[in-house]
């Protein structure tokens, strides 16, 4: 046993790439870990499935009862309304659309972050990664990726169910270009929302339920912004504005997350 142990212990110190302490290598290692975890975590698949189920339920159930409930005669209504149609924002018809995914992204990220703390894995992360910005960047990117996956799943199922239910695919003044700009802008907006949720999640990280409730509340509070900012007839300008907002949000909220982590106890 002793000999076996001896042969397994190699000479020298830690042979790791993060020992080089370059930002890119540190982020690479952390991203690898976070994505490995994401793909081995049921919550990711559950959230993407729920994202896919929403348009299926809305289009099939609400569409079947057009007389009583809000009308979803057009498939794209579950994606977004045209600009100027946001007056009845709190109506069910306007709430049950793709913007709900901004709340699911909040939920997904909060659970992901909360498990880091409740499991104690955060001790491994922060002992090795002295720079808190590594955590902010990596978790934000994983959250954005999850959000984009949800948007893609939602859109795909919308098209399939819309076709099955015989809904109209008329895009009107928006056109296919407007639809694509709208979807891409929504994806870019994840770059604002996810880092914001991350800041909230690390602020309330002491208790799992607090993290989830606080982040979820932030999601509820801010998701209508996505509807107002990005209508179905989005333009290149909308896309550029969202890209700019994503850049500022990612850096700004990333810095805020790092600041919170630096100033407060982690475990």
């Amino acid at each position: 046993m002793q000999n076996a142990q001896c042969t397994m212990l190699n000479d020298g110190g830690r042979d790791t790439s993060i020992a080089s302490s370059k930002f890119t290598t540190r982020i690479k290692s952390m991203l690898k870990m976070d994505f490995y975890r994401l793909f081995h975590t049921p919550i990711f698949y559950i959230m993407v499935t729920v994202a896919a189920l929403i348009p299926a339920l809305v289009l099939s159930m609400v569409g079947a009862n057009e007389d009583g409930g809000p009308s979803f005669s057009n498939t794209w209504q579950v994606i977004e309304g045209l600009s100027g149609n946001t007056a009845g924002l709190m109506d069910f018809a306007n709430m049950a659309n793709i913007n709900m995914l901004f709340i699911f992204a909040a939920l997904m990220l909060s659970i992901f972050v909360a498990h880091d703390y409740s499991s104690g894995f955060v001790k491994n992360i922060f002992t090795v990664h002295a720079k808190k910005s590594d955590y902010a960047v990596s978790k934000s990117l994983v959250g954005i990726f999850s959000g984009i996956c949800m948007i893609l799943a939602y859109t795909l199922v919308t098209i399939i169910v819309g076709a099955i239910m015989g809904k109209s695919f008329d895009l009107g003044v928006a056109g296919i270009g407007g639809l694509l700009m709208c979807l891409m802008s929504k994806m870019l907006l994840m770059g604002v929302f996810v880092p914001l949720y991350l800041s909230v999640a690390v602020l309330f990280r002491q208790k799992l339920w607090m993290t989830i409730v606080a982040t979820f509340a932030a999601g509820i509070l801010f998701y209508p912004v996505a509807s107002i900012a990005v209508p179905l007839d989005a333009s290149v300008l909308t896309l550029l504005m969202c890209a700019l907002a994503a850049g500022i949000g990612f850096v700004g909220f990333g810095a805020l997350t790092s600041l919170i982590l630096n100033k407060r106890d982690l475990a």
Partner: protein
Amino acid sequence: MYAIETQDLTKSFHGIRAVNGLNMHVPEGSIYGFIGENGSGKSTTEKLVCGLLVPTGGQILLFGKDYTDAQTRSQMGVLIENPGCFPGATVYQNLYMQALNLGLKNPGLEVKRVLELVGMGGAAGRKFKQCSLGMKQRIGVAQSLMGRPKLLILDEPINGLDADGMRIVRETLRELNRRDGVTILISSHILGELSKVATHYGIIRRGTLIKEMPGTAMSEECRDFVLVKTSNDQAALAVLSKKYRDMKPQAGGGIRIYDEQDSETTAKFLFDNGIFVREIAFNKIGLEEYYVKLMSKREAA
């Protein structure tokens, strides 16, 4: 050089000082036994060193550099309080994640290596939440050993381990220290076990380091001896020096004879040489007894 050096390290929680002006010196290449009662500040100190808590005051140096130095921190392995593992993931997945976190080039191979090292090769596919306390502890040790760290910080690593588990962990730590020069800061309530590996000791009480000494000095304190008290210790010392070589007067009166195990022999020898013995006893001080005595003295003070 010191692997860990703290200067006036302080940490307060809501106004209560958990660590109070701690000056700790962990020599590079040592196995530093960190001893203290529950709530004395051991875990808080370890968390501070790992950067998991923000110090209220003072300084922490790792290998001569500030503890926030990214390169130095990447050379650390930790097991504090309990293993940081996701309960729903398998043992393999948990360790694989840590290997990725460390940026290891062959994560799969490293996972196998550390699992074999702690005798857990067969448990890779088991979910972490299904493991026993002892198994979890070994997994935690394995996790801390990933990527061959230069500095290991282990908080109660042998808690819940059976005799064989303790032996494996002990031998692994000794071997890492001997072969690779890994510095190990280890705290444990099982002082007997700790005394088998530690080369240096630090004793903490109410957040302050009350004693810090190398293992040789601790051995000196913990040696077996015959304590003899006479009406004239000076004369007794002169007589005893004819028979014994290893002895010294004890502070507060009496003579400690280290190269004698039988108090009756000593008593008879002194009597035959005209020395009146007031008190004689054989003393066996292990690390545990030493610690208890030290604490009692402090309590009394």
